[in-house]
């Protein structure tokens, strides 16, 4: 407690005895840090204590201040807040290399973030100390994503009280330094009592993520999303240090991806000629992501989850088959016909253009979920093929057929990307741990788990040495909890998943001794009932809760994170993200009083 006492005293010195005039002091309320929570109290005229705004109070009332996700190695926030002038922020890049343009972009973003920390309807005074930020990138030539890229950074803010504040961020790559800038932006708060921007002084932070893969999946096939809404999502991801935007770009319902070699796929498959993504569009998103440390990972889901777009190819079976419940999980049905040689040429063309468009990706997602035997079995051609191969028409033979497809597709993918890059598949009957090694090499494939966190498949796959990405639907499917769009009642994975459950969803607990094989996790927004109108609210702020779990794998529960979480939601809103509200604003202003 003595530390807090000092903190309040020193804050008093810096801002209480400072410049503010009497008129500015005329706030009805002020906040004070008592027992690790900020309490809202009347600001009586005879009050002699420092008048703290809510954000200033919160910055000192928690070991992690207002940081999100919380740093993992060392967090030492000083006891001083200095008034700064946001017009005099200078950013120096001290080491040159081929990632300099990215750092320059990150520096620009930093300035934007600083200006958006001023809430709507307020304007900060252009007075205060100037700030110089030194960016030291020890490996300025690295600009490629990889699963073992170094995202660590160290951040120092000077302790002197001269008329200048110096901050230094040091990292082993652009990605780390960029994270440091995000953290630095979170150390700047708005004082809405005096209309000043304040920065924490005397800071040491050392930080790196626990998991290398921290993603969000967006399905742009069930409903279309504008490029602008995708960029907005990436902006929010960067703010909470997520690093992978997994683009589930096609599905049976639509094929919005424009391919030069196979133009009919989007011509027939897009919802309309304007609801498409061209190579140019995708490259724009990829570049936008790279500047924000977010890899844009393409998925081409096959052999199921295809349909629209393939009409004229003769390469699909059971497209729009009825009753759909017999051949797929939602309308329209459709599956590729693996027996067609020409199919693999098609796939190669798709992969080649994806490799060109998704320039910076270091991995490729091949989908592979929800294949229906019945669908394949409905085709005489496929039956004949299987008989010729001396296969039966039983479950295990259809797995062989699927494997035949996957092997061929895999070869084409390697060819298209020009390298044997890591491939990702969804969990399915093919990835069942009892036989997975017969089909998929653990060094080639990463498995993305979408079944529940209690599924024995997780331990089974880990024991066999597979690397996993966790997207267990019971905690990470953000489309759950709404009305069913086919049939009655609520949708299949109801109820809605609250942020508390998202936060508590720990891969470490699921992995036990195999934690090193967990690459990370991903939240998924399937879009049957979502489009740009609902996007922000479905993802945010819940994806921020996920981000802290992935970055820090905290041993603590959501209760300890609640007030930082409420603040990160406010930050997102100020950035222009229409994040859902988690609690009445009263709870944000009256810490600790909205307990269960």
């Amino acid at each position: 407690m003595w530390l807090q006492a000092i903190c309040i005293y020193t804050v008093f010195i810096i801002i209480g005895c400072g410049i503010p005039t009497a008129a500015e002091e005329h706030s009805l309320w002020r906040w004070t840090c008592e027992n690790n929570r900020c309490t809202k109290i009347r600001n009586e005229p005879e009050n002699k204590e420092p008048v703290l705004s809510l954000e200033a109070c919160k910055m000192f009332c928690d070991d992690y201040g207002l940081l999100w996700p919380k740093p993992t190695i060392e967090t030492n926030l000083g006891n001083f807040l200095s008034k700064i002038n946001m017009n005099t922020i200078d950013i120096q890049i001290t080491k040159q290399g081929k990632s300099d343009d990215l750092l320059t972009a990150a520096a620009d973003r930093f300035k934007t973030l600083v200006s958006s920390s001023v809430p709507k309807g307020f304007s900060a005074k252009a007075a205060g100390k100037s700030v110089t930020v030194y960016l030291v990138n020890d490996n300025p030539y690295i600009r490629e994503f990889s699963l073992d890229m170094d995202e660590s950074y160290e951040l120092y803010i000077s302790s002197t009280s001269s008329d200048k504040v110096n901050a230094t961020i040091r990292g082993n790559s652009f990605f780390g330094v960029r994270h440091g800038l995000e953290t630095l932006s979170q150390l700047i708060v708005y004082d809405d009592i005096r209309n000043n921007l304040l920065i924490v002084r005397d800071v040491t932070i050392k930080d790196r993520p626990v998991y290398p893969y921290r993603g969000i999946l967006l399905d742009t096939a069930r409903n279309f999303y504008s490029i602008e809404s995708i960029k907005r999502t990436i902006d929010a991801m960067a703010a909470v240090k997520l690093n992978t935007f997994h683009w589930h770009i096609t599905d049976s319902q639509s094929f919005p991806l424009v391919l030069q070699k196979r133009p009919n796929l989007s011509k027939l498959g897009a919802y309309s000629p304007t609801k498409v993504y061209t190579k140019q569009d995708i490259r724009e998103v990829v570049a936008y992501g790279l500047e924000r440390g977010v890899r844009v990972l393409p998925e081409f889901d096959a052999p199921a989850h295809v349909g629209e777009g393939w009409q004229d190819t003769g390469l699909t079976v059971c497209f729009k088959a009825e009753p759909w419940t017999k051949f797929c999980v939602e309308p329209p049905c459709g599956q590729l016909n693996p027996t067609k040689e020409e199919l693999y040429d098609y796939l190669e063309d798709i992969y080649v253009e994806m490799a060109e468009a998704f320039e910076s990706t270091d991995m490729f997602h091949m989908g592979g979920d929800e294949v229906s035997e019945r669908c394949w079995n409905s085709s005489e051609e496929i039956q004949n093929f299987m008989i010729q191969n001396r296969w039966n028409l039983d479950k295990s033979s259809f797995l062989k057929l699927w494997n035949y497809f996957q092997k061929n597709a895999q070869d084409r993918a390697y060819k298209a990307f020009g390298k044997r890059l890591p491939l990702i598949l969804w969990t399915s009957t093919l990835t069942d741990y009892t036989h997975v090694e017969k089909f998929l090499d653990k060094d080639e494939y990463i498995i993305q788990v979408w079944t529940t966190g209690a599924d024995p498949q997780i331990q089974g796959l880990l024991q066999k040495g597979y690397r996993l990405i966790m997207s267990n639907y019971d905690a990470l499917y953000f489309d759950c909890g709404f009305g069913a769009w086919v049939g009655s009642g609520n949708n299949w994975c109801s109820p809605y998943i609250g942020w508390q459950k998202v936060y508590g969803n720990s891969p470490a607990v699921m992995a036990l001794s195999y934690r090193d094989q967990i690459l990370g996790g991903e939240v998924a927004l399937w879009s049957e009932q979502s489009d740009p109108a609902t996007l922000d609210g479905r993802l945010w702020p819940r994806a921020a809760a996920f981000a802290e779990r992935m970055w820090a794998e905290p041993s603590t529960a959501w209760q300890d994170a609640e007030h930082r979480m409420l603040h990160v939601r406010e930050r997102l809103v100020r950035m222009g993200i229409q994040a859902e509200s988690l609690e009445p604003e009263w709870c944000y202003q009256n810490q600790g009083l909205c307990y269960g």
Partner: protein
Amino acid sequence: MKMMSWGDALWLGLTARFARVGRLRRAVLMLAAAACTAAAVLYWKQQTDDSANRPLHSMYSGIEPQWSWLCQHDRCERYQASDTTTLQSLQTCNMLCASTQLWPQPTGPVSLASAAVPVRSDRFSLKVIASPSRDVTKHINEAFIVMQNHMRTLEHGVVGENRRSDIGPPRDVLVKVSVNGSGDPRMRLDTNESYKLALRPSGNSLVVDITAHSFCGARHGLETLLQVTWLDPYAGSLLILEAATVVDAPRFPYRGLLLDTARNFFPVSELLRTIDAMAANKLNTFHWHVSDSQSFPWKLDSAPQLAQHGAYGPGAVYTSDDVRTIVKYARIRGIRVLMEIDTPAHVGRAFGWGPEAGLGHLAHCIEAEPWSSYCGEPPCGQLNPRNPHIYDLLEHVYREIIQLTEVDDIFHLGGDEVSEQCWAKHFNDTDPMDLWMEFTRQAMHVLERANGGKAPELTLLWSSRLTRSPYLERLDPKRFGVQVWGASQWPESRAVLDAGFRSVISHVDAWYLDCGFGSWRDSSDGHCGPYRSWQQVYEHRPWATETPESAAWPVEGGAACQWTEQLGPGGLDARVWPRTAALAERLWADRAEGATADVYLRLDTQRARLVARGVRAAPLWPRWCSHNPHACL
């Protein structure tokens, strides 16, 4: 596919065809009527010269439409444009095929032409044929401009000047409005909202006759007129049905949406957009739950202390001017603004300034701990029923509500979730229920004074312990009505109706839109989950239960409730829409059928209308299902 030959269509087209509501228009007739007239812009014969058949498609920046939708067996089926002789957009097919596409479905006879003609917003003109008052005339004029502005918004979807030339010139549309009845433009309990609309060709132009008994009825007619007008993206033009007659009146007089602006603050712009969306669905009551224990954002002229102490901050305040803006905006849209200052519970820090002002404690238990002993959710707070100053204060509040909203026939006193423990702690000499009854009596008394000495015709209380036996018997059903929020199966929810209290239904198990998002205080599934789907909202008809008593229930209508513990401005539209549209049809039309296929398709169209109006309504399903009507049903 089997396409009808052009000659067949022409032959069939010689007869004018209409359909009654509830029956589906026959697809062939649609094709026929479309073909029979030069005005039928939607079909044209395949030319031998291909280039002549390649019109500009303004929405597509040079790219041709890929799909054409044709009405086959009462359904719009999607075809590749190159496989058909006609090119028709989904929107136009929907409007001309079997379903009426009106929302809410009219309750009287409807006949709709199955052909459309091009129009332009600036070619609509208004003539008020009959009006009982200057005020009504003024309101009609303003409502007409609102309608025209919505048409203009639709037209903004057309880029540039490349409107297709071969659809013919836009028609002039003369809208003639007659109101024979009330000279009061306000939405009142006794307002007759019925209207008749007749749209017919007259020479080269169109004439629309809207007759009604009130401004609000006439306004509904304009809303229906707007619904038979749509943007055809292939033609790059607005189209309107060539002829239509609609006879329509609502089943229930009270059709509302509650928005809570106290748990989280919503800027005025959000409220206006919500009210406009309500108007699109012919809802008539914006129940504004303006304050609660968490905050008091309304800065009253007569008691500014309430917001000073109760608002979240200076940026989270509604001024009297804001309220006037909202009321005026709603008035033109046929909507009453019912402001609720909930008392005696659901109050907080806003009432904490009594002692320093020398008025004593205006409220008790403000932010008392542990909260679960004194209220249903944090923070606690309850008015002090023994402090006479509280009634003076309430009189000011009530007077200002009535002055600003100009609603004096209906009033909401709040009155839910009073904590007996809170009062018992401060008044150990009296049964808290008696205090509550006495408080309600006194509140009613000052309400009468604030209302010029007259009790409003209907004063609403939330259902509560006070509206249960034995206390219910002590309330006068001639003065009080009850907004029933308890679950439909709770005995007390029925008892209120059986006892003859005029009621507004807001059953938590069907019409609470906040349910299903988990708990905001812990990680449980929350108190009222799961989520209420639009189908569930739509299919709720508690008055249609089998009991003999329910036939005589004095149900005024219903309201969806959007409490906002877990909602901020960003999520508002998608949370409320299109589910509240589903409620609107339930209360307007109260069709016996549930969410049948036709309801899905019409609601999908209505959702698109809302989106075009700038409302971020949630999608019902993948767009694929809109493109392939019936395939997902």
